């Protein structure tokens, strides 16, 4: 029947691979197993995706204190506006619900997944699986859900059920709202009278462009300025600006003198260590302040090379700058910005 053999071959190919050719574009390439493993790290509610590992409350407490407490507090109670992770049980129907891992989160997998993928803030994806298990164990302990001897591991993970696991319903607006709120609305004499019951200006929380809202949290300490300062090398400052990207999640410099996760670096050089007003320093920085140590190039270079070794006990989670050139550059940049 077929007169042309080539056509037979083409037709056979099409039948053999029905999802290929015509309905695909042939763009992209197959992903390699290593690539999928690197990026597909999500953990499902039933624990699917968890790596092998384990960690105790005690280890978790140390890690939490070192890596998490600066925002979440030593007892996971939350610092300032940062999220509180513990407490709040049975408050969800209250006037001010306290939503924490213990009181609100439905699945422990979510805690593991988020700590592993996105924490610590500014240093995501730096924790080993055992560290994540330990931190999650400590968060459970902070919520009085396990005792202090507890160890969390991939085998025991599924045994933990969070208190608010059954506290969620699927969106029911179609039944509870849409059905009632469709139809021709009233146009005239829809109510008898109207009175103002609340005014935004009474509450007065609207930010003002020139208000105190953006005022520096820290008054710049008077700094002795050397009589003659060598002009900064623009190339070095430019490199330093790039290096500073690693710092700016936590530190301000220049005109912005707000404290963030870390103290402002505006005016840091010539300033006593641990001396920025309104910042909660670790013990080691409080000691340095008492000793009268002052930030200069040498102290800064030593600290940046290995923060936790140079000032043991610092809350700064940053691992340090490996290259001396980067340290020199970032110091030049901070100085150029009035640091």
């Amino acid at each position, binding site marked *: 029947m077929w007169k042309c053999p080539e056509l037979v071959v083409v037709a056979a190919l099409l039948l053999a691979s029905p999802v290929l050719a015509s309905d695909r574009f042939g763009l992209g390439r*197959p992903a390699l197993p290593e690539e999928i493993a690197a990026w597909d790290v999500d953990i499902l509610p039933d624990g699917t995706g968890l790596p092998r590992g384990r960690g105790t409350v005690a280890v978790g407490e140390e890690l939490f204190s070192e890596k998490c407490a600066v925002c979440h507090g030593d007892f996971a109670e939350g610092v300032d506006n940062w999220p509180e992770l513990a407490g709040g049980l049975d408050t969800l129907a209250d006037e001010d619900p306290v939503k924490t891992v213990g009181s609100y989160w439905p699945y422990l997998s979510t805690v593991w997944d988020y700590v592993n*993928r996105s924490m610590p803030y500014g240093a995501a994806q730096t924790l080993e699986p055992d560290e994540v298990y330990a931190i999650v164990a400590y968060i459970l302990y902070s919520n009085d859900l396990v005792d202090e001897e507890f160890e969390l591991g991939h085998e025991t993970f599924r045994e933990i059920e969070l208190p608010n696991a059954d506290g969620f319903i699927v969106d029911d607006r179609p039944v509870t709202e849409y059905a009632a709120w469709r139809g021709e609305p009233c146009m005239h004499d829809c109510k008898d009278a109207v009175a103002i019951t609340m005014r935004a200006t009474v509450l007065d929380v609207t930010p*003002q462009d020139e208000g105190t809202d953006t005022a520096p949290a820290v008054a710049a300490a008077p700094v002795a300025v050397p009589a003659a300062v060598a002009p900064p090398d623009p190339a070095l400052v430019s490199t330093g600006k790039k290096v500073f990207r690693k710092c700016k999640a936590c530190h301000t410099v220049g005109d912005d003198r707000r404290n963030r996760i870390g103290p402002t670096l505006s005016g840091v050089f010539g300033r006593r260590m641990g001396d920025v007003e309104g910042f909660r320093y670790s013990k080691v920085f409080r000691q340095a302040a008492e000793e009268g140590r002052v930030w200069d190039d040498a102290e800064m270079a030593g600290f940046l090379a290995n923060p936790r070794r140079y000032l043991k006990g610092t809350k700064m989670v940053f691992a340090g700058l490996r290259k001396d050139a980067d340290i020199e550059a970032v110091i030049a940049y901070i100085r150029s910005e009035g640091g």
Partner: protein
Amino acid sequence: MTARISRRGLLGGGLVAGAATAIPTVADAAPDPLITRVQDWASTLGDGVDAVPYGMPTEHEKHVVRRNVGWLTADTVSSVNFTPIHALDGTITPQGCAFERHHSGAIDVRKQDWRLLINGLVDTPMVFTYGDLERFPRVNRVCFCECAANTGMEWAGAQLNSAQFTHGMVHNMEYSGVPLRTLLEEAGLGAAGAVAGKWVYVEGADASSNGRSLPLEKALDDVLVAFKANGEALRKEHGYPVRLVVPGWEGNLWVKWLRRVEVLAVPVESREETSKYTDTLADGTSRKWTWVMDAKSVITSPSPQSPIAHGAGPLVITGLAWSGHGRITRVDVSRDGGINWETARLAAPGQDRALTRFYLDTTWNGEEMLLQSRAIDETGYVQPTKRQLREVRGLNSIYHNNCIQTWHVRADGMTENVEVS
């Protein structure tokens, strides 16, 4: 107190001071020197064509910028700012003043470093580059993107005295991109089997990842993998080089710096869809998967940052309306706090899941007004009052507050955010 926000510079100098003065009439006016004298700009030369290779708004409009609410979040890196909707017109939001919401800051990813991985229940897990993306057939579509928390600070009462802060977590852009369906089909969905009950998990390349689960039906319906907005590349703060566009659904699902789409048999129940973006009701139970943004509207002028500065006479009342369920078909405006309503003029017929501009061209005689607007969409849904919402949800839902907003316009034209009985 009412005048504070204006006096303090949100409007720029002097605009409010003239609220009670009318424009001089021919009978009593001296000749206008702006007309009778030769102005510098009419005599000397302006800038050459190369003065500004990429144009920014003139300095006279420098007050039309995004603003944030400092006390709302711990850190601007994990925070939100607000579109200056009070000062814009039309429907398209310029990228430069479209609100931003970051969970770990706006990251810098080059096109050549961008990769998209599609894995999970697909026939062949695939990696696409930016160059690949540009070779798939693409579509253009205008969509609003509204944060689920827009107006969230107003649940308990009138709180922020500014349309920018009460309603500015919304923007509306024309996107160019590839349907997510095309990319999923390129990887092959044979392995997924039946579509119903399946999910996709979408995540970004930033430290937060902002991963969210979406029903596969939605992914195959109208979700776009977008790389242009308003004709040009996305801005860094909106996910450059590639973000997800999820028409009509809450902004948190519009993953920026998109890096991975996984087809799954169950939702991941990530942080952003359990501890956040769930809506707690009065009895303490919480709704989840509340993806659709219901119909909503707000009068953008007059509003606290845009008071009536021209005295009695012709007045343009204008605002925006939108619905995640489809097209806006009608907007009503009330001047007396909801006793009587009149239907406003739509600048153009409502577009599916895009902002609609409305106008009420009217006359104001200096009377006090309690201005409200009420949107109606093609499903017949009528934007509810705050009381209606509270009766169903209580005060702690945080998200999805689409209530009717009230502005109190005083006799001097100053305008305030109020709540009415």
